[in-house]
């Protein structure tokens, strides 16, 4: 099954980087923005990557490729495809920190932890939520969610 995917509209990215803020908050223990940033919690690493050159900017995250090189190259099976949702997910317990996934990712959207020698962050399309945090909070709809057919999925208001 193909996963729902995130569509980037770079022409409307305003460079506020709030997608990173909300990604971090969503993957934190408390999921509370102020506690995540100001409390004693260990702050997670963002799974969305912001790029900018001149007036052009966009945020990119894992594309959950149909033929994912990171899965193919993973030695331990830590990087796997979730059969139910089609998402490419990462099992931290199995990860040995060889970073082959990082080497093979064509988009460079897997981040590494040099100290613990593990993969530390990768977009999981917000497992706990119906709607990914970055999509929901982008102030200019520059990050959209599309279904298997490529049609936009909008959050039901109210």
């Amino acid at each position: 099954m193909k996963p729902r995917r995130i569509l980037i509209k770079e022409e409307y990215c305003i460079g506020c980087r709030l997608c990173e803020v909300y990604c971090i908050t969503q993957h934190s223990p408390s999921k509370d923005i102020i506690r995540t940033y100001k409390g004693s919690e260990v702050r997670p690493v963002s799974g969305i990557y912001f790029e900018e050159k001149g007036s052009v900017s966009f945020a990119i995250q894992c594309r959950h490729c149909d033929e994912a090189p990171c899965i193919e190259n993973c030695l331990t099976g830590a990087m796997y495809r979730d059969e139910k949702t089609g998402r490419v997910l990462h099992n931290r317990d199995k990860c040995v920190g060889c970073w082959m996934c990082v080497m093979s990712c064509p988009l460079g959207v897997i981040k590494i932890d040099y100290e613990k020698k593990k993969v530390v962050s990768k977009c999981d399309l917000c497992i706990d939520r119906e709607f990914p945090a970055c999509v929901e909070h982008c102030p200019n709809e520059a990050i959209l969610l599309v279904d298997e057919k490529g049609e936009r999925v909008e959050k039901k208001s109210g």
Partner: protein
Amino acid sequence: MAKAKNIAEFIIERDEKKCIKCQACVRVCSNDVHNYDEETEEILSDNIKCVGCHFCEDICPTGALTIRRNLSETKENAHWTRDYIYKVVKQASTGGILLTGMGNDRPYKNYFEHIVLNAAQVTNPSIDPLREPMELKTFIGRKPDRIIYDKTRGKYILKERVTNLLELELPVMFSAMSFGSISLNACKSLAKAASASGVYWNTGEGGLHKDLYPYADRAIVQIASGRFGVNVEYLEKAAAVEIKIGQGAKPGIGGHLPGEKVSEEISLTRMIPEGSDAISPAPHHDIYSIEDLRQLIFAIKEATSYRKPVGVKIAAVHNVAPIASGIVRAGADFITIDGIRGGTGAAPVAIRDNVGIPIEIAVAVVDQRLREEGIRNQASIIAAGGFRTSADIVKAIALGADAVYIGTAALIALGCHVCQKCYTGKCNWGIATQDPYLTRRLNPEIGAKRLSNLLRAWALEIKEMLGGMGINAIESLRGNREQLRAVGLNEVELNLLGIKHAGEAW
């Protein structure tokens, strides 16, 4: 010499308990108000640069920012208020004309707030628009003096030739805002919303950009004193043509789009060299009389094979009624009157705040004059300048307008917070700017949806008000001044508006 310096208009309050130092405010402010200090890891905000556009406040993810008015007061003085003192201070240091954007912000009498509407009680029934049909459809253009038809074999055939009329689903249109004064994304938002809602948008004197061609059948194109962007395609594609003589925010004043805003796209659309100033002269140099105007109107009608309505836009000034009469006699199919509260991208403060007359009175006297002369059917009246709510629109229509133009209200729907800094080209909301960092902030998909929502909401409210009066078509309200009563207006005002005082029965 020690001298008064400009003071901060606003104070930025940052709740340090809530600020997570994400620096979104630092990145988005086009006025460089917020700065992150790497050493102290603090964000400092420079109040004096803040224009009060509230973009940072809206984007802050934790609600840590509040923009307040600076309460630092000068000594209480009814005559020399703080505004006037600092205008002098500014001019003493710059030696230039003070510029501003948006409409007149002075506390002139607002007649809309002195007019109340009628409702049906006992002697005639009110109508529930949710259960019964309610017609807001409006036609703009010249209507025949009488209907001459042939009836053959049960079929009616119209014998008089009727010019194409503009068909509006509700009597509201987007007023002239050029590509140049506003961004292409703002134009796209307006154009899309107008197409989706069955109303019209206006190109202003900015030409018709190729990206807007799909919405050209809903465009009123403008021919102003600079003649920018006027070509065969421009006239061919449009739904109607408007000759702009004046604008409510700056009657008697021309326009000036500075060269730095004339990008490649604007230069192509306006048909002028890139980087050159686009100067619209104060008068049309070929129009010095009603006869000259007639020549231009008919030149355009010839060019468009008499298929499109041709209108004329003027600012509401002292002589507005006779001028309007002349314009109708010159052959205009509609006449747009822009009142003293009409907006602009840039105008001298002295002009914007002091020249022109209120739209409420202008519409009433023009409608009255055209009726008296028996030529009211020859042209539609479009009122513009400061319409804020559906009630303002209902009142204007009852005073005699066929439809209204909204400009500022449309921009507010797109994010504008009326900070009046349009002329700086640094609009944080991506509206009045050509800066590629800023224009992308206005996503036309969102913009068009918000504008359509606004029109939908107003249409619903207008229907409710009509229903309350026991009227089921906007056509029956047009010029129906019996539905209006004044509260607290003097006799001269009542006569000019042609309405009775509250308490006076029919």
